[in-house]
């Protein structure tokens, strides 16, 4: 039975992981997402579903535990926040290079360096453009509510296994820390060994059987032409993801002259800004990317013929705005408003910025 609860975003990540049949969580404490592992340790899912939970010695170890678990075709995940995600990049690029499905949750805080523990969206580049070395992409989902923190754990695993690719839930500290009503999903049992054999039996480490070749999980290929062939295969996969998996929400866009483009907590704030602007007669809409990779390039492009301009609103110095500009490609004006350092913008200042930048 679905269950309605009042919960913190981070707690919901843990609760949904248990409910959606996750096999293993490997993490290391970091603010503002430590509640994920705390909730798991309190819930003791190993007694309930058999899910393994390990507090690793570092983020580096945690992501490599994910690499190990994912190698076996298991549903495994980790979570962290910005500085910890930087440490995980080595493992993430290996996961991408070995084409392993897994879920990484990033509850962003402000940087660079140790930065601040306050919320931020300044890791958009890191999340959507690769993050580690090599030509690769993660599938990046951006929740804007506690409900989506729950929904995207299940969706992240689904997409990760569909494409044999790491998926990331890119939240910000606001979404991780806020409490909201959430409808928790029903329990899905963990996959049995037979189900893993069926789903991932062609590649996963399940123990070398007499009737098959041994399986090797590796991202190593020393022969240049074979590596290029592999790179081309990865690129074909990304094109397929771009064609099939774009998700976004369009709010009040039908009659809009201006469009806010915002994700996560900024998208929530922009909804209030739309109300304020419309009270002043300024027709504004919101395009909220749900998948940051693949980015909703086409929906933005399609709006160009109907609107006067776009304003990307982010808690960063302007990162996603670059993808908006690429989508718009000079057809209408694109501008940006952001706050940094853990400062959350108010609805009023966003409206003021719109009026100012577009001379309304």
């Amino acid at each position, binding site marked *: 039975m679905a269950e309605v609860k009042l919960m913190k975003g981070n707690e919901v990540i843990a609760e949904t992981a248990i409910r959606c049949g996750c096999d293993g969580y490997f993490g290391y404490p970091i603010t503002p997402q430590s509640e994920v592992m705390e909730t798991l340790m309190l819930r003791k899912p190993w007694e309930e579903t058999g899910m393994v939970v*390990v507090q690793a010695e570092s983020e580096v*170890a945690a992501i*490599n535990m994910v*690499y190990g*678990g994912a190698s076996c075709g298991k549903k495994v995940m980790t979570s962290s926040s910005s500085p910890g995600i930087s440490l995980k990049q080595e493992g993430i690029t290996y996961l991408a290079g070995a084409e392993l499905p897994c879920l990484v949750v990033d509850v962003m805080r402000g940087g660079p360096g140790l930065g601040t523990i306050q919320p931020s969206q300044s890791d958009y580049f890191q999340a959507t453009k690769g993050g580690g070395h090599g030509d690769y992409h993660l599938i990046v989902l951006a929740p804007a509510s506690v409900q989506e923190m729950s929904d995207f754990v299940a969706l992240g695993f689904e997409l990760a296994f569909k494409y044999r690719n790491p998926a990331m839930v890119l939240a910000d500290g606001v979404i991780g820390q806020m409490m909201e009503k959430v409808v928790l999903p029903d329990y899905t049992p963990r996959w049995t060994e037979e189900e893993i054999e069926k789903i991932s039996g062609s590649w996963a480490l399940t123990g070398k059987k007499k009737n098959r070749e*041994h399986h*090797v999980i590796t991202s190593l290929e020393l022969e240049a032409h074979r590596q290029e062939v592999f790179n081309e295969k990865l690129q074909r996969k990304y094109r397929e993801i771009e064609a099939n998996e774009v998700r976004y929400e369009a709010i009040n866009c039908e009659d809009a002259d201006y469009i806010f483009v915002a994700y996560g907590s900024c998208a929530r704030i922009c909804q209030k800004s739309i109300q304020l602007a419309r009270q002043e007669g300024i027709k504004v809409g919101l395009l909220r990317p749900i998948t940051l990779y693949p980015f909703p390039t086409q929906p933005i492009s399609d709006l160009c013929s109907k609107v006067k301009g776009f304003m990307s609103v982010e808690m960063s110095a302007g990162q996603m705005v670059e993808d908006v500009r690429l989508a718009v490609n000079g057809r209408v004006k694109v501008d940006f408003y952001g706050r940094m350092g853990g400062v959350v913008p108010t609805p009023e200042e966003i409206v003021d910025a719109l009026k100012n930048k577009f001379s309304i």
Partner: protein
Amino acid sequence: MSRMELTDIIKEENLVLKKSALLTDNVMHYCPGCTHGVVHKLIAEVIEELGIQEQTIGISPVGCSVFAYNYIDIDWAEAAHGRAPALATAIRRLHPEKYVFTYQGDGDLASIGCAEIMHACNRGENIVVIFINNAIYGMTGGQMAPTTLLGQVTATTPYGRDAKLNGFPMKITELLAQLDGTCYVTRQTADTPAAVRKTKNAIKKAFQNTRLDKGVSFVEVVGTCNSGWKMTPVDANKWMHEHMFEKYPLGDIKDI
């Protein structure tokens, strides 16, 4: 002694030693005389003798033995540099019925992977760790490893390892034996037939230990890197005897 033709001896029923069926037909990329080849063979023989091919998962490192997966016919994951114990932790916890081992060199295990091996040992994971100590980085061209001896010449210690400049040879195996999560810690070598037999017994015991929920079984094999040491394989074995065992004495360090 009665006369006996070779053809009388070379018959299937007289075969006493042959290549393990678990070793693949791939020609090992290792230099002539490399210790890795001997240890790979022993692991393959142990897995074959225990009949656990279907239950065994190996983790290969970064270093010369990165391609270990090409040679032993089991399922393998190839880890990032030093991270094999983290992979092994997850795989063994998610598959308690499996035999999981890491195969790591001294740079991988004692330098870049120091944290991962320490904590896997400290958590008492039920895994086997095979640690090859040849006191040098082989794959990258013979640079100093944490285990390089004082005075030893390498590509990055061209005037010999100087403690003031480079620190001291690291006895990581003794350190790991201090941790409550290890149950069997031993240092072996593989240069003579007797040493090879002892190392094989140690590896077999380590694999069997993983069934007993006692923690990490850690087998160090002091070996040679004749290319890195710039010697013939035979001279490298002599050098190992004369220099390595004083710092890295052979035998069981812990067995509980």
